[in-house]
């Protein structure tokens, strides 16, 4: 337990937290712009308030939905720039909660943006530390400390737990039959209009078993990325590939989830330093110049 605490609260480069802030805020702005919340509000769907949406007596009006969408996108972009972060990030987060709550109160709870919102909640809790560098009005300096490490590592733990529990529920409810039965074939066939990839896999039982085994193995082993950092080079691309395959085969868009995984696990200072070195002009050697 002490080792885990030391790891979570270990020091970190301020730019890494700032990179996660910028990435998650841009992703939130994109996700908020991807839905027509006012159209949903105008459709008069039955309002089945989910959890905190009990605060509303009925589905928010189309005008309120449009207003929240505009405010949420503007606040998320401002938070991405690090502008007035103590105000803009919580505002963007609350707008995201209400607008996602509208989608979740139309009869079906969507998991796809859950991980993004959980990780954003951690960045909200980090407060000003997330805008100490790579932000407008922030001095151009380097910083290192515990206050920059715990939000990034807590987000990593939350992501690892999400995949671990997705696997655990499959083991709990279905066991090894999730792989050995024709479960994945029935999932693929049960769509209204399955596409070519879905039918290609579903028509080949052995291939379906392999995909099911791969998905379950990946989810079960995901948490290893916390203990063996080198495995991130294998597991993170595999997770992205799994979600892209799900998008193609089942039409389920989990881009918010896999982009959150990439944003949180990529070491942004290393990427930026590498890009700077690659893009910097090579100085002419004196011996050759003369």
């Amino acid at each position, binding site marked *: 337990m002490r080792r885990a605490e030391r790891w*979570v609260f270990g020091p970190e480069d301020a730019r890494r937290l700032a990179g996660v802030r910028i990435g998650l805020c841009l992703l939130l702005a994109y996700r908020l712009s991807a839905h027509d919340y006012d159209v949903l509000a105008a459709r008069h769907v039955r309002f089945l308030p989910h959890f905190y949406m009990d605060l509303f007596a009925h589905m928010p009006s189309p005008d309120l939905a449009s207003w929240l969408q505009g405010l949420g996108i503007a606040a998320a972009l401002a938070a991405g720039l690090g502008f007035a972060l103590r105000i803009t990030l919580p505002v963007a987060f609350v707008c995201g909660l209400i607008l996602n709550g509208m989608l979740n109160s139309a009869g079906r*709870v969507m998991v796809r943006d859950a991980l993004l919102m959980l990780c954003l909640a951690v960045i909200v809790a980090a407060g000003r530390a997330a805008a100490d560098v790579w932000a407008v009005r922030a001095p151009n300096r380097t910083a290192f400390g515990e206050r920059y490490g715990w939000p990034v590592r807590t987000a990593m733990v939350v992501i690892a737990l999400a995949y671990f529990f997705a696997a655990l529920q*499959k083991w709990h409810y*279905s066991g090894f039959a999730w792989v050995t039965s024709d479960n994945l074939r029935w999932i693929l066939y049960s769509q209204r209009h399955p596409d070519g990839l879905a039918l290609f896999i579903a028509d080949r039982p052995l291939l379906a078993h392999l995909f099911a085994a791969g998905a379950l193995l990946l989810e079960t082993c995901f948490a290893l990325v916390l203990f063996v950092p080198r495995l991130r080079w294998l597991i993170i691309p595999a997770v992205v590939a799994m979600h892209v395959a799900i998008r193609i085969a089942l039409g389920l868009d989990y881009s918010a989830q896999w982009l959150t995984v990439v944003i949180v696990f990529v070491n942004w200072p290393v990427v930026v330093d590498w890009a700077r070195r690659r893009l910097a002009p090579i100085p002419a050697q004196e011996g050759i110049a003369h």
Partner: protein
Amino acid sequence: MGAAPRYARPFVAVFVGLVVACALAPLNLWPFSNWELFSRLRGPVVSHWEAVVQHDGRVVDYAVGPHTACGPLLRKAAARFGPATGVRIYQIERLLSDRVGAHAAPPYRALVVTCTAKGARAPS
């Protein structure tokens, strides 16, 4: 300057605890999730129940729950389509692997009961 704020440790404990508790309970308190998506086994057959009403010379069908009593069904149909003479209830079954090229084969429909003002009539 570089130390974590005092609230950080309790926050992490409560936040991670909530993630774990919602998954184990299981509770779906979005964005805290139980992560149960696709965790239960699917079978080779999907079935649902369908009500069929004659309305203005057209046949209108809509999904209903299984074992729905005739009285409420007739009242709902009358409210929706005007005075309905009868509502036929079908059980629709589709074998998922049953396909015609890239498309699903037509489902199997079995008449379960016909509801009229005089009562329920089982298929003969």
